[in-house]
């Protein structure tokens, strides 16, 4: 082995330094913005993988630093201010219609992800009970676990966990408190008072005696039934015995065998 051969090898090795990919920092850090929404100002964290975190200004006492610290505590990643929000976020916050956005739910369990995916199907202005979600994700009877999963929703407001309520018309728990949940639902024109009045009379489903279809009370099909043709039911079995079939839109049949 000659000395020069060794030098040549060492020389070649020294040229193997490489430039990192364009945005290595972007693989580690997450961007954040502050935007107006129907619920007042919100703070949102996002990356190329999607939107990962949302907090209302109210929930962090209007303090940007409290939002940043709560994000870091939960995700352990650095944050950097973004020059603009991801496409579609601003209109989604204005309208409350956010199904088309991309979310980063990688930090959650597969059950939690399934729950948050299922509830994105609940339309604006409608509600479903916890047991309905449990049934939708293939775990009937896991209504309490659904409640915990909703409590860990990192992107409330956009992923509409506020649309999952107790069957008796009470809003149920919420990340930002029951009061915030109720005002979000009222902003979407959900008639909570009516749902409560019906529940007080043991009515949890509404049917139309012209179509013979039975729905959850907030389903848009139920809201179209005129008072003269509206019939109330305690459960879907009772409705089916009366010759009604479950609405294919709000799918109350999932409760029938619960």
């Amino acid at each position: 082995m000659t000395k020069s051969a060794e030098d040549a090898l060492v020389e070649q090795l020294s040229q193997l330094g490489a430039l990192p990919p364009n945005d290595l920092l972007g693989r580690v850090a997450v961007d954040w913005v502050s935007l107006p929404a129907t619920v007042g100002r919100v703070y949102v964290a996002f990356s190329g993988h999607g939107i990962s975190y949302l907090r209302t200004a109210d929930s962090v006492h209007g303090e940007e630093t409290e939002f940043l610290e709560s994000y870091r505590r939960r995700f352990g990643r650095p944050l950097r201010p973004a020059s603009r929000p991801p496409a579609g976020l601003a209109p989604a916050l204005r309208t409350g219609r956010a199904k088309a956005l991309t979310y980063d739910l990688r930090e959650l369990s597969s059950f939690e992800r399934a729950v948050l995916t299922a509830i994105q199907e609940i339309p604006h202005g409608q509600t479903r009970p916890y047991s309905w979600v449990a049934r939708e994700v293939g775990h009937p009877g896991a209504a309490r676990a659904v409640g915990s999963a909703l409590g860990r929703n990192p992107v409330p407001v956009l992923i509409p966990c506020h649309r999952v309520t107790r069957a008796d018309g009470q809003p149920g728990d919420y990340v930002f408190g029951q009061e915030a949940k109720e005002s979000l639902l009222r902003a979407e024109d959900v008639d909570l008072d009516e749902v409560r009045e019906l529940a007080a009379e043991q009515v949890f489903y509404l049917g139309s005696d012209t179509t013979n279809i039975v729905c959850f009370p907030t389903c848009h099909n139920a809201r179209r039934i005129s008072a003269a043709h509206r019939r109330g039911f305690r459960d879907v079995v009772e409705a089916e015995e009366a010759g009604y079939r479950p609405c294919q839109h709000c799918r109350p049949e999932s409760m029938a065998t619960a």
Partner: protein
Amino acid sequence: MCDDEKSGATDALLARLVDDLDAGFVDLVRGYEQVVYSVALRVSGQPSDADDLAAEAFLRAYRALRGYDAARIRALQPRSWLLTIVLNIWRNLMRESSRRPRQVPLADLVDPPASGPGVEELAVQSEGMRELTRTISTLPTVQRAAVVLRHVIGLPIPDVAEILGCPEGTAKSHISRGLKKLRALYLARDRRATMSPPTIVSNHRADGLRIAAATPALAGRRDQ
């Protein structure tokens, strides 16, 4: 690449980390991403793995920094610290993949073109570099790490020893054994290249490469 450890610039960077972790962290990544990525790329041999390795190393660094008090951050030697993290992650990945080997598509081994030299020069130069990178990935892990730290990054022996967690004498011997093996593999390749017609050479190369790339762990073990 970067300043000597504990220079004024390093102290200023560490002070920024103490002052505002997230803002200082941006500077930490900017200052050391090239050295961290170069080591990740040359030990793993693959750009796709190197991206993940480098990103994961910085993420772990950030999470560690969140738990450190000011005194501990000020005492850091960021370059050695970050390279220790990157090599730890890489070694753990190697250990996992030697239990569960995977096939590596040859296309993944191609470096993205670097800017600088002209097209022809680049073609010749980067072919040689790819060859060398592949040859490096046949070395046993500790020799690979030692050669990359010493000769690709140009670290002094004491730093190499610190990062590898061994005495300086041991670090030196890892480096020289690694170099010796690289030279032998290199000479063997050159002999093959001069003895065969060009078309067959490229075929031989491709075959040999595929095997070496698909079984880095096995190749490493055989060498030991």
